[in-house]
């Protein structure tokens, strides 16, 4: 192997290790600094190669490119239900996740309306979701409304643009509904 090839492999491994340990999306500058290069372009090109390698390898993990030149490593969603219980950090249970889905689907939405539709226990859900930074309150004219945050969009690999996000969510929910037994 040539020196250049070896260097490239080392850099790819560095980026992979960085995404692995961070457990969150890393922006191009963070990735650049891991490589100790000044060139954004170089970092981007290497990330392209790594992303493609993950596609080709076809294993349990995937690397996603998010908006604003950010990248994240995560388990493919098809494996999530099977290994969820091995995660040693309290995940959101189904109730709060449902409330989150509803807020994402109907946002911007007043918390009053969320409580009306999801019931009294949704007070706790909204608090939890706000604590976790997945949902935020915003003033919309005279009323205060709930919206998902950029962190939420990141977490689900969704664009932060509200219209596109809602369209994507509808697609995701549509798919999820297909598998669900219809009421």
């Amino acid at each position: 192997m040539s020196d250049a090839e070896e260097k490239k492999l080392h850099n790819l491994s560095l980026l992979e290790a960085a995404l692995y340990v961070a457990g969150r999306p890393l922006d191009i500058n963070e990735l650049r600094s891991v490589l100790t290069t000044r060139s954004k372009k170089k970092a981007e090109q290497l990330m392209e190669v790594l992303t493609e390698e993950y596609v080709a390898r076809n294993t349990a993990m995937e690397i996603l490119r998010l908006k604003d030149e950010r990248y994240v490593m995560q388990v493919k969603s098809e494996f999530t239900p099977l290994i969820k219980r091995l995660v040693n950090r309290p995940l959101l249970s189904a109730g709060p996740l449902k409330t989150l889905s509803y807020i994402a689907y109907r946002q911007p939405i007043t918390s009053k309306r969320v409580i009306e539709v999801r019931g009294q226990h949704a007070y706790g859900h909204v608090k939890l979701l706000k604590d976790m930074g997945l949902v935020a309150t915003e003033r919309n004219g005279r009323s205060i409304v709930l919206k998902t945050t950029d962190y939420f969009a990141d977490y689900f690999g969704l664009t932060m643009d509200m219209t596109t996000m809602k369209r994507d969510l509808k697609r995701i929910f549509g798919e999820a509904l297909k598998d669900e037994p219809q009421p």
Partner: protein
Amino acid sequence: MTETMTRRPFYLRPPINILFDINRLEKLTPWNVNIAFLLRQFLSEMEHNGKVDFRASGVALDSSALIYLMKSKLLLTLQEPPAPPKMPTDFVPPPLFLPLRHELTSTTIQHLLAVLDEVLKGEKLAAIDRVVAQPVLPQASDLMPQFDKFMAELESQMDKLYAHLLDLVKGAGIIQFTNLIKGLPRIEAVRAFILLLFLAQDGLILLWQDEETEEIYITVGNLKIGKQPNAKLESES
């Protein structure tokens, strides 16, 4: 007047007349009407007169039924469950599952050790707390004179400690709790601590605790170091 009354049929005299005045009957609170009593009275009067009045009996029966009905209606309205609030229906999508990511965390054994130090100090304080937790005030059932005596004793102790504090700071200043109790036996230290709480409650001193060192600072006199509306002893968060 009395003559007119006596000439009227017995059933138009109170209290039986209620049964024969339909307009009045409908305005009554049915719970105030004892049907059984009225009907018994009606029957015994009729027996006493030796004449059966079928028309009057019919009206009495009808009125009783009406009162009974009114009672039943009220009972039923009371027992009827409140109408369920109309739940606004909306499509609630299925739960979104968070994608799983491996998360390394930055906490190491060194962090654990760093905080243990503080916690073990807290353990010692907890031992003091338990002494504090023992009843200091007499039970409510105790006689008032005993309580008065206790309060008088407490006030005199508070005065002594306050004078001592003023002496230590020469008018105004801050003292550390550990300095105040230096050399005192534990029970005396606990007593001093309780008295400080009473003094703080009376607004004579201010108390605060450094979260890191857990040292308690006592401010005596007017120091004008920022406004602190309430004297408080901050507990560790």
